[in-house]
């Protein structure tokens, strides 16, 4: 993937080249590409005059960041306490079986990726699964195929529920 130099330069200037804002810059990159492309990190490192190891440190320390491309429909299963006691573990296993990838992986066609998240704060609706920006509460194992079906053929981006 080609580095979008203009986007990066503009972003850096937006933060006044402040080294304390590097995490925010990485967040902007993550928001744009849904992961941190290696070449983009290399460019940021030289433009900001910081070692790339520092960027790698942030990228692996914070949960937001991914060094691998994520699926078009990123699936997150909430693993908060309420979701756990209401059976979130079995939900993950069911999704793994349905789309044939393991937790933390992205499908070969880049359609799905599967992650767990530590509490979305909707414990009243436990267990909770998000697909893109769509949130599904009070999930059961038997509801999973129906939910995933909506995304299998859809060419459009999921409808945003939280802007």
């Amino acid at each position: 993937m080609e580095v979008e130099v203009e986007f990066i330069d503009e972003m850096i200037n937006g933060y006044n080249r402040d080294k304390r804002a590097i995490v925010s810059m990485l967040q902007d990159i993550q928001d744009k590409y849904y992961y941190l492309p290696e070449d983009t990190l290399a460019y940021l490192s030289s433009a900001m005059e910081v070692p790339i190891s520092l960027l790698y440190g942030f990228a692996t320390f914070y949960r937001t960041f991914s060094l691998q491309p994520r699926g078009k429909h990123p699936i997150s299963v909430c693993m908060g306490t309420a979701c756990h006691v209401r059976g979130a573990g079995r939900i993950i296993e069911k999704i793994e079986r349905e789309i044939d990838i393991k937790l933390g992986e992205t499908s070969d066609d880049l359609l799905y990726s599967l992650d767990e998240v530590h509490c979305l704060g909707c414990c009243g609706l436990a267990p909770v699964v998000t697909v893109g920006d769509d949130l599904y509460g009070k999930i059961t194992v038997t509801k999973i195929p129906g939910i995933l079906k909506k995304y299998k053929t859809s060419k459009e981006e999921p409808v945003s529920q939280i802007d």
Partner: protein
Amino acid sequence: MPKITPKDLARIREKSRQSTTLREGAGRAKVTVHMGTCGIAAGARDIMSALMKEVESRDVKDVLVTTSGCAGLCSREPMITVELLDQPPIKYVDLTKEKMQKIFEDHVMNGNIVNEYALAVGSERAH
């Protein structure tokens, strides 16, 4: 706008009460959709669209539609509060688009509380 002074607070308070309190003549009815993250996750946005559709298609002008945060009882979301002039507010829970339509027709337009969908009458008291 220029900076406000403590005196302005009282003025804003009165003005705001007039525009939000039905008693002060702001309208005939007020419908509040509770839209916190859990409410939205449970489908509050659909309820809001169903409500707006009713308001538009009936061309009513005296019904205030507003949003507020979570009302606390997350397991019964989506939730709305309907308040008619000089009547205590009614909270409706576990809503669907169809229920919203019925509430609009029966309660907002005709003043009859839809008992089977209602949770409670009145509002919570701040201590």
